C-alpha cells in the first residue's frame, strides 16, 4: 500500500482553506489545534502501563474529547429511528463502557508513537476533518483522520476517526446492524454488556 511523506501543515493551507471553506479560518485553526492537543494527550496516556490508572485517564480523555452520545447514535445507523427511549438509554450507557474498555486496549498499539498534523478541511461550519500522521518509533507511518464537530456552537468533540481509511463509526455500524437484525437493540445492548464484562476481567 502506497504511503506518502507529507509536510507539516503550513499557514498557506489555512489561507486556501478559508477561500473555499464555509467555516472561518479561525474556527478551522481552533479545530485543528483541538485535534493536535487531544491526540498528543492520547499518545501520552498510551505510554502508561496497562491498569486502573491508564483506564481512568482514558475514560477522562473520552469524556473531554469524544461526542460519545452522537457516536453511539450514528453507530445504530437506520435503527436509531426505531429505537425506544428506554432502549436508547441502556444502549448508550453500554456503548460508552464498550468504547472505554475496547479502545483503550486497541489504541495501546500507539504507545511510544508521535503525531504530526498534516492538514485539515472544514466540511461545513461545524464539521472539520484533520489528517494526521502517527509515527512509530521504528519510522513506520500510519495515517489517521479525525472528524470533529461542534454542534450548536459548543466545544469541539471527536465524532469519528479513521485509521488508514478504516472508519470507526462505519465499522461499528456495520457490525451492530447484523446483531440488531437478529436480536434487536436490546439484544445488541446485552451483547455489548457481556463483551465489556468479559474484557474488563
Amino acid at each position, binding site marked *: *500500500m*502506497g*504511503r506518502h511523506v507529507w509536510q507539516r501543515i503550513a499557514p498557506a493551507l489555512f489561507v486556501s482553506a478559508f477561500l*473555499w471553506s464555509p467555516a472561518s479560518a479561525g474556527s478551522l485553526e481552533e479545530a485543528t489545534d483541538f485535534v493536535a492537543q487531544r491526540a498528543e494527550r492520547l499518545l501520552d496516556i498510551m505510554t502508561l502501563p496497562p491498569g486502573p490508572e491508564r483506564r481512568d485517564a482514558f475514560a477522562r480523555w473520552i469524556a473531554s474529547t469524544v461526542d460519545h452520545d452522537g457516536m453511539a447514535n450514528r453507530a445504530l*445507523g*437506520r*435503527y436509531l*429511528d*426505531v429505537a425506544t427511549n428506554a432502549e436508547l438509554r441502556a444502549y448508550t450507557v453500554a456503548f460508552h463502557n*464498550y468504547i472505554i*474498555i*475496547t479502545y483503550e*486496549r*486497541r489504541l495501546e*498499539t500507539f504507545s511510544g508513537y508521535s503525531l504530526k498534523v498534516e*492538514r*485539515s*478541511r472544514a*466540511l461545513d461550519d461545524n464539521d472539520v*476533518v484533520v*489528517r494526521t500522521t502517527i509515527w512509530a518509533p521504528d519510522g513506520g507511518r500510519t*495515517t489517521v*483522520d479525525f*472528524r470533529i464537530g461542534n454542534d450548536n456552537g459548543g466545544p469541539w468533540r471527536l465524532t*469519528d476517526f*479513521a485509521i*488508514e*481509511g*478504516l*472508519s470507526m463509526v*462505519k*465499522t461499528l455500524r*456495520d*457490525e*451492530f*446492524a*447484523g*446483531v440488531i*437484525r437478529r436480536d434487536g437493540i436490546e439484544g*445488541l445492548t446485552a*451483547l*455489548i454488556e457481556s*463483551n465489556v464484562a468479559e*474484557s474488563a476481567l
Partner: protein
Amino acid sequence: MSMSSMMRGSAVAAVVLLAVACAEVPDDPLEHDVFLETNDPLEPANRTVFDFDVAFLDHALSPVALAYRDHVPEPVRGGVSNVLDNLQMPVTILNSGLQGDFDNMAGATMSFFINSTAGIGGLFDIPANSGWKPRREDFGQTLAVWGFAEGPYLVLPVAGPSTARDTVGLGVDILTDPLTWLLTPGWSYLRSGADVIDSTAREHDRIDEARMGAIDFYATTRTLYRQARAREIANGVADPFGLDDSSEE
C-alpha cells in the same frame, strides 16, 4: 488447469448464483434497506465457512505461522516475502496496464526485472531500498476500475473474505499468472503454502487486534475487508471523510 477443475469451478459458481437468487429478501422497509446495504444474501452459508476458516486459522495456520515468525530470523523472512511479492509482479504488471495505470505498470516491470536478476530471484527488493514500491494490483481491482459492482459478499474456504467481483478476479489472476502454467503442481502448492504462512505471520497481530472486543467478528471482518478493498481500489488513497473531495469547492 484441467477441464475437470474448470467444470468444478463452473458448478460452484452456478450453485452460488442459485443461492443468491433464492435468498429471502425481508419485506419490512427498514430490514429491506439494511439487507441491501449489507449485500450478504449468503450470510448463513458464509458464516459456516467463516467459522471453518477461523478454526483453521487458530488450529492449523497460526501455530505454523507463529513458529515461522518466532524461529526464522527476520532477514530470511524478509527475503521470502520479497520472493513471493516478486512472483506476484506479472499479475500486477498486467492489471496496471488493463487499468491504464502505465506508471505503476512501468515501475512493476522495472522492479520485476531488476529483482529477478540483480535481486537474485526476488530475494532482495532493490528498487524498494530506493523508496520505489509498485502498488499490488489484481483483476478484482481492475473490474472495479472498469465499473463492475462488487456483488454479494462471499467467504471462501481458507482464502477468507471476498466478494463476487473479487472471486471472479481471483480466478482470472490464477489463469493469467504465468507461473500457474510454468510450475509443476508440487511447486505450485509450495508457493501457495508459503504465501499463506507468510501473510498469516505478518497479519497475525492485526487479526487479533480486530478480534479483540469485536461484538460480531464475522460482521467486523466483512466491513473491514470492504473498507480495505475500497482503499486498494483507490490506489491506497483512503479518504473516508472527504478531506480531499474537491466537488464542493
